[in-house]
C-alpha cells in the first residue's frame, strides 16, 4: 500500500483487537477458511497416494498417526466446526435475519446489529469448536 492511499492493509484487516468479539469472529472466520483450504489441498495430496498401492497408502497414513498428526487433525476439527457454526450465523445475518429492526437510535447508540443473538452465535461457535477439538483429541490419544 502506498502512503498516498493510506490503506490500513492486511495488517489492519487481520487485527482482531479493537472492535469487539464480532471482529474476532471475522478474523477467525478468515483464518479457519484459509486453514481448511490448506487442509483440503493436503488431503487431496494425501489421498492421491493410493495410486502408490496398498503399501504406499499405509506408509503415508502412518504420518497421521503421530502426535503431530493428531494435533493437526484436532485443529482441523476445531476450524471445521467454527467455520460451519459461524458461517450459518453470518449467512443468516446476510439475509437480514437477527440483525434487528431500524429504529430511532438513542445515546449511547449501541448498534442493534451487534445484538445478543449474534454474540451468542459467536461464543457458541467458539465453545463448540473447543468441545469438538477436545473430543477429537480424547479419541485420537485415547486409543
Amino acid at each position, binding site marked *: 500500500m502506498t*502512503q*498516498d*492511499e*493510506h*490503506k*490500513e*492493509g*492486511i495488517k*489492519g*484487516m487481520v487485527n482482531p483487537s*479493537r*472492535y*469487539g468479539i*464480532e*471482529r474476532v469472529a*471475522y478474523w477467525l*472466520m478468515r483464518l479457519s477458511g484459509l486453514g481448511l483450504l490448506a487442509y483440503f489441498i493436503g488431503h487431496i495430496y494425501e489421498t492421491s497416494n493410493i495410486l502408490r498401492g496398498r503399501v504406499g497408502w499405509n506408509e503415508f497414513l502412518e504420518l497421521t498417526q503421530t502426535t503431530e498428526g493428531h494435533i493437526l487433525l484436532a485443529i482441523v476439527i476445531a476450524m471445521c466446526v467454527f467455520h460451519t457454526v459461524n458461517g450459518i450465523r*453470518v449467512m443468516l*445475518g*446476510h*439475509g*437480514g*435475519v437477527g*440483525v*434487528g429492526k*431500524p*429504529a*430511532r*437510535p*438513542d*445515546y449511547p*447508540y449501541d*448498534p*442493534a*446489529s*451487534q445484538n445478543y443473538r*449474534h454474540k451468542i452465535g459467536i461464543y457458541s461457535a467458539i465453545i463448540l469448536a473447543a468441545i469438538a477439538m477436545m473430543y477429537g483429541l480424547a479419541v485420537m490419544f485415547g486409543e
Partner: protein
Amino acid sequence: MAQVSSIADEQSSQSITLRIARYNPEKDNERRFMEFNVPYEKWTTVLEAILDVKKHFDHSVAVRYSCRQATCGSCGMIINGKPRLACFTKISELDSNVVTVEPMNNFPIIRDLAVKFERLFDTHHKIKPYLDRDDTELTSDAKEFMQSPEELEQYIQFANCIKCGLCNSACPTMATDSSFVGPQALAQAYRYVADSRDKGKDSRLKIIDDSHGIWRCHFAGSCSQVCPKGVDPAMGIQLLRGYMLGFRS
C-alpha cells in the same frame, strides 16, 4: 522524531501527553509524531486539546473541524487506535495518560490529521442519494408525498449519517480493497431503498450489485461500532442484501 512541549496550565490539576501524527505528502517521506503536554478537565475534548496545541505551540498542525458538536462530520481521526470524532471524544473517557491522534485510515492524507473525502463523496453520490421518482411535489397542483410514522421508522435512523467517514475507516474490507463502495454509501443506499416515497429501488440495487459492491461486505460490524450517530451501517447493509436475495420486498 518526537518533540515534547508543555502547555500545562497552573489551574488545571491534570495533564496528558498528546501525540500528534505529522505528515506532509509533498515534503515528508514518512510519518513522525510530535508530543505535547496539555492540561485537561473532565469535559475537555480531544479536538480542544489539539486546538490548544495549535494556539500555544504549533499553529501548523493541520486538522479539519467546524461545528464542534458531532454534526458536521469534519473531525474524524484515529484516537488511541480507533476511529472517533475528536469533538465528541472526551480525554477523560479514554482512561490513558497518552492520547495518540492519527489521520483516518483508508483515506488519502492531505496533511497531518486532515484527509481527502473525495472518494467518500463520490461513492455516496454514486448510489443516488435522493428520492428517485418521475413526479414532484413542487408543482402548484401536486399533493405532498404522504408517509406514515411506521414508514418513516424504516429509514430515519440511516438519515442521521453525517458523512464523517469513520465507518469506512474501521471497515476491514476498505483496508484492502480500493474499489469497495464502503459501508457509508451502502447504508445510504438502504436509506433510500427503504423510503416509501422512493421509486428508484431497482436502479439503486443494480448499482451496488457489483463484485466491489454489497457482496464484499462480510458483516464484521466494525462500521456500526464506531458510528458516532447510531446509524448502524452493518444493519442497513444486511437488510439491503435481504432485498437482493429476495428475503425482503
